[in-house]
């Protein structure tokens, strides 16, 4: 049986799951977004969140808008629950004013490393290790 990590969150309006994530040793609240390829960080948080410019841009295709380009940042240490990844790329974006209290989006560049499940009854994100297949 694969090991799993259970990240306790809560549902915000509309049923979206919010979970705590750790960026360079500080915890924030991100929305789980399996429709997003990358992490996104609310640009308003840049004063506090310790992220370094990655020197590249990420092209974003927001729903209902034309393509935009955002500067990519690198976060040295990133954790969700007990699952740690290093040197994660994220896009710093201007979130709509109505979403200014949201710190960021947890995208597929993290989630794709796990078998992930959202439990609607417990507001929990479950991350299971992907077993190595024998050839």
């Amino acid at each position, binding site marked *: 049986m694969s090991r799993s990590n259970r990240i*306790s969150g809560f549902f915000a309006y509309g049923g*979206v799951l919010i979970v705590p994530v750790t960026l360079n040793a*500080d915890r*924030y609240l991100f*929305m789980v977004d399996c429709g997003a390829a990358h992490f996104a960080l609310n640009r*308003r948080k840049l004063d506090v969140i310790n992220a370094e410019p990655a020197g590249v841009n990420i092209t*974003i295709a927001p729903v209902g808008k034309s393509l935009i380009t*955002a500067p990519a940042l690198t976060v040295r240490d990133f954790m969700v629950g007990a699952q740690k990844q290093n040197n994660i790329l994220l896009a710093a974006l201007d979130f709509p004013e109505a979403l200014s209290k*949201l710190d960021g989006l947890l995208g597929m560049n993290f989630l794709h490393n796990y078998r992930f499940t959202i439990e609607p009854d417990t507001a929990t994100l479950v991350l299971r290790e992907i077993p190595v297949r024998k050839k």
Partner: protein
Amino acid sequence: MRDDLKISDIRERHKDQWVVVEVTKVDKHNNPLRGCVLFHGEDEKKVYSQGPKYRQTHPQADLFYFYTGDLIPEGIGVMLVAI
């Protein structure tokens, strides 16, 4: 001496405020369970800017920054993507 509170109690005590909390207890999955409120208030920049200063003198502190009210206002259907 700061009160050591459940995260849910912090949300109630400091409703609709920005808080910086030093986490004092986590579960086996590293979920924050309890903490002490270091800074709180309605001005995000003012509250959050205190966190990095605190870290300078407490480098091992486990700090949790969050807003205690609704992160997504009622009536807003979120469809954000970053492709």
